[in-house]
């Protein structure tokens, strides 16, 4: 039954299906904003790689951008609440109007029911007024959203320009740092790798690793053999095949998360007792001091 034909007007015009679509769209936008904001927050958080004089301006800009997004997000949440509330109200009011329309239709042709018909139409007009008031609330929520967007657009700060300048400054600082520090850093890295290789030879001497070639053939190992007080014996030792005297059993690693003691337990002092003793009490040379616990 068409409301406007029966009553002469439609007090609660609205299309509930379109409201569902609008509500879903707003929800999706909010989710995307929240995700973007939390990722920005993660990048620009203090205590991170940006927490220094060079990175701090970038982190500050990211936080400012994040705050703007937060304001937008709040307005959108209010819009969503207004849309949902409007949709619930529309359903209720349209149901009321449907009931009124049915009653008015029933009274058609009855000359004694004029007063009742007038009262029903008056009630429908009241529902219409309520509907207009709710529509004004919905419009206000979107006005607020529009204001929040305008505020971001109108803000006299040049976020993009400032970010660009901060990134250029960061790039220059990194280039300067690399020019001064990178060669020594890379030498240290190479040196660590070489020493790691030399230390790995111990695993071959212990009989648990086969390095695939005789350690004494490697230039790095030959260099340390030359400095050894027992060179000839060391040469002989490095030529031997030690796998045959490999230990029958090795202690279970305490640091594997799949073994009984998780790494975090070990490192936090809740250590698992194993066949391995805590070795290395009281070493010190140069700047290094190792001590068994």
């Amino acid at each position, binding site marked *: 039954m068409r409301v406007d034909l029966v009553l002469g007007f439609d007090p609660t015009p609205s299309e509930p299906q379109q409201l569902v679509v609008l509500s879903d769209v707003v929800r999706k936008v909010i989710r995307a904003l929240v995700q973007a904001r939390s990722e920005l927050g993660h990048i620009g958080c203090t205590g991170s790689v940006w927490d220094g004089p060079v990175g701090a301006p970038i982190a500050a800009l990211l936080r400012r951008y994040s705050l703007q997004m937060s304001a937008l997000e709040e307005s959108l949440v209010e819009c969503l609440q207004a849309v949902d509330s409007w949709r619930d109200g529309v359903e209720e009011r349209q149901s009321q109007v449907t009931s009124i329309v049915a009653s008015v239709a029933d009274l058609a042709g009855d000359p004694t029911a004029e007063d009742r018909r007038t009262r029903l139409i008056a009630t429908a007009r009241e529902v219409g007024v309520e509907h207009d008031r709710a529509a004004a609330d919905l419009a206000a929520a979107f006005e607020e959203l529009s204001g929040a967007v305008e505020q971001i657009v109108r803000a006299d700060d040049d976020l993009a320009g400032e970010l660009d300048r901060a990134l250029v400054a960061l790039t220059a600082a990194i280039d300067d740092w690399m020019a001064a520090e990178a060669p020594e850093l890379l030498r240290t890295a190479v040196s*660590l790798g070489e*020493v*790691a290789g030399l230390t*790995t030879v111990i695993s071959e001497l212990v009989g648990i690793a086969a390095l695939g*070639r005789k350690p004494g053939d490697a230039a790095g190992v030959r260099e340390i053999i030359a400095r050894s007080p027992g060179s000839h014996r060391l040469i002989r030792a490095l030529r031997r095949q030690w796998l045959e005297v490999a230990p029958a059993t090795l202690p279970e690693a305490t640091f594997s998360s799949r073994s009984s003691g998780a790494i975090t337990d070990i490192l936090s002092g809740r250590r698992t007792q194993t066949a391995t003793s805590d070795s290395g009490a*009281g070493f010190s040379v140069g700047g290094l*001091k190792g001590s068994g616990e």
Partner: protein
Amino acid sequence: MRFALLIGSRTEAAPVIVLDVPPDFYEVPLQTETEARTAAQLQVLEDMGLSDTGQREALSLYLEALAIRLSRGSVLGTAFCAVSLEGHPSTATLTVALHATGTADRGLAVMGAAEAMRREGRYASVGIHELGVHPAVTAIAERPSLPGDAANGQVGATLREMSVLVPVPGHEQAAMITLSTPCLEDWAVYETLLLDIARSLQVQRTHPDFIH
């Protein structure tokens, strides 16, 4: 086991960088005093439970040769483990250096180091991570297990290594820790271990020797 890297001279007031290392690792003794070094080397042989005389002599000679080699250069410590991991033998080495970064800005040091390592081209991957409260650079590379070319051209086993650079809060220094292993099947375990060790970095205001 704890690696304690001394910043500055060895005095009570000198700050120390401390790294927690699981007890599975045997530190290669690097003391400058011969007696102390020899005693520590013997202790390593005991702790490892080696019974073969020839093997004990070989390891003893090698530990001494390694100590002499490391008496120069920037590497401050090295340690190794020989363990059973899920039923098979496994080994890895840990090496530590303290590197001057020329800045107390940890972010700059990390971003600069990461870029330098990327450009150098030796690493398969370079990344920036937050390890607890520390920004850090991680770099992974693979290379022949033994340093230097072999006279006969043999290549040998592959060693996978991961280096972590962790700037020391409040100091123009960074700890550089490298873990290497020829046991590639155990890589995931060692990678997690190294990140945990790097995460444990802390600065102590008093050298452990002076804590009573």
